[in-house]
């Protein structure tokens, strides 16, 4: 099912000061195409979960409308929207078995939708098989591992065959290895069912790896929406550029003078924009070590973590929190003369942002 948000805004009265109004979601206006897996991404407190709750129906928007397909669901209660929700800590009822948990939503059905006990069990078994927990049906949630609980929660959300599946930080309670497995599971389940799925996360890697589309948020405002790789390669502003990618993008103070881009005294490329001070963001993989390279950095050390070899160096114009970090080919020879390493920059792996509004400037 297609989801359309129209100028969606949600304001709360501040918990600390009754006169202060907090805008958790600010004028959201976008469309999520049918059958996509969408990652809603942003730092803590940026309004991701509120957005999810609005779509789910647990919160009522201050302004704006929500459509599922052509149906205006803005004022519908959650149960009439056809949504399934997986909560961050799963919210499995501890006193029910896995089967009872999954069947619970079906028992609420009224009127024509009402099911017999056999139909319910059949349906529960069907989704349990889908998420591969069909052998655990008689266990209590406390007897399951975190990953299994997660899958029970997904099964419970799917049992009514919702048009929209919502997941709030689905992987945050799992350990690293399980997180990888589970995100593949979510991907697979989403593909098998074809249900439009939105999941909230603050982990950009998680969002990038499994989403068809990602939406980056900051302070209640949508920053950018698009295919993960596309957003990564073409960030619209400095925030998006900094938020996506590990290690993070290296940001430098720079300047455009006479159609040329400078970092300090080093001219690193051309730029058509007007003369101005700018930020230059260079992806770690955007550095090419070269004896005649244009960007000069003071060499510090080489770090090898698994398959990545990174050159750590200093540059006085770098304003990121850490040192300059360049990821290079492991067989690349790093030459440093008098403690200075030189790099050329890979086209498309660095971005220029205006100092005024931090928006991207086309090179």
């Amino acid at each position, binding site marked *: 099912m297609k989801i359309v948000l129209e100028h969606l805004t949600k304001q709360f009265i501040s918990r600390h000061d009754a006169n202060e109004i907090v805008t958790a979601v600010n004028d959201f206006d976008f469309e999520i195409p049918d059958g996509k897996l969408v990652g809603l991404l942003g730092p803590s407190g940026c309004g991701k979960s509120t957005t999810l709750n609005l779509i789910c129906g647990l919160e009522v928007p201050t302004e704006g409308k929500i459509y599922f397909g052509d149906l205006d669901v803005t004022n519908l209660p*959650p149960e009439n929207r056809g949504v399934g929700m997986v909560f961050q800590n799963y919210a499995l009822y501890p006193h029910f078995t896995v089967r009872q948990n999954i069947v619970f939503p079906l028992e609420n059905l009224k009127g024509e939708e009402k099911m017999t006990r056999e139909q319910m069990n059949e349906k529960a078994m069907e989704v349990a098989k889908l998420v591969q927990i069909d052998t655990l049906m008689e266990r209590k949630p406390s007897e399951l591992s975190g990953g299994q609980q997660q899958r029970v929660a997904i099964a419970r959300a799917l049992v009514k065959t919702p048009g929209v599946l919502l997941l709030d930080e689905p992987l945050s309670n799992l350990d690293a290895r399980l997180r990888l497995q589970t995100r593949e599971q979510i991907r697979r389940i989403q593909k098998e069912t074809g249900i439009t799925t939105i999941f909230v996360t603050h982990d950009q890697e998680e969002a990038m790896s499994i989403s068809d589309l990602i939406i980056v948020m900051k302070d209640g405002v949508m920053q950018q929406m698009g295919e993960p790789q596309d957003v990564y390669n073409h960030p619209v502003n400095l925030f998006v550029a900094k938020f996506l990618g590990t290690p993070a993008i290296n940001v430098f103070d720079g300047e455009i003078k006479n159609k040329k881009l400078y970092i300090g005294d080093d001219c690193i490329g051309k730029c058509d924009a007007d003369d101005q001070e700018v930020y230059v963001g260079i992806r770690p993989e955007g550095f090419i070590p070269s004896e005649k390279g244009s960007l000069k950095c003071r060499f510090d050390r080489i770090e090898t973590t698994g398959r990545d070899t990174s050159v750590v160096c200093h540059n006085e114009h770098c304003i990121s929190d850490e040192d300059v970090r360049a990821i290079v080919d492991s067989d690349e020879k790093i030459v440093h003369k008098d403690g200075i390493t030189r790099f050329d920059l890979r086209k498309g792996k660095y971005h220029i942002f205006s100092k005024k509004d931090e928006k991207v400037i086309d090179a």
Partner: protein
Amino acid sequence: MHNKNNLKGWLYLLPALVFVGVFMVYPLIDVMVYSVEEGYNFASQSYNGVGLYNYSYVLHDPYFLQAIKNTFILVMITVPLSTTIALLISLALNSISKLKDLFQTIFFLPYVTNTLAVGLVFMILFKKTAYSDGLINMFVNLFGGRSIDFITGSYSAKMFVMCLYTIWVVLPFKILILTSALASVPKVYYSAAEVDGTGSFRTFYKITLPMISPMIFYLVITGFIGAFKAYSDEVALFGTDLNSAGMNTIVGYIYDMLYGNSGGYPSFASAAAIILFAIVLTITVINLMVSRKVAVK
């Protein structure tokens, strides 16, 4: 090493064990001994023989049978009723946001009020005097009813006041426990239930109730024990001569046997105490068995 540690452990426990021994175990054994000593004489500290005569006497004493009847009626009416009412009030308290603290304080006030002071208030509400028939009777009259003598009148009227009083006295503690139990149920379960379209009654019955059931069982068990040991509330309402008021309880009977006007019979009192002990133990074991069975389910 192992033994030494064991010794140390017992040493740490010693103060507690001494107190339990002196004030719990020894008296219990002593009471059992008293209860089988026939014809015990308080002055000479002598007795004629050992047997079950004391039990037989107590169990044939109409006052004791009346006390058992009163106590059982009190227990069976007040425990379920007070727990249910407390639950309803807690649910209401939990669902309001304004003035919640104020109401919580108001509902807790009776708990810190002296039993006898509360008894006095009930006297004003219910007692007939030369000048008035009591506040409640004024209302009864207002609606065209005839005055009822709650304090010295019919058994059912007296029992009604007794139960009302008991419920009112035990309510605050139950409300306190249940409101905190309700508040401790994570909100996310209600969100999940809402998304699934669970009706409010079903949410309560299927989610809230099971989640607070340990606290409810705790209240029922302690409620039973407390109601079986009722005595001071009766004195507050009907005075010290409970036997003639027909409102005596088991503990009241034990007290009367020891110190009352007809007192001075520690053997009979001991036998009655042991019978009470057996009753409370049986009921508590049944309660625990039921709660365990429900919890497992």
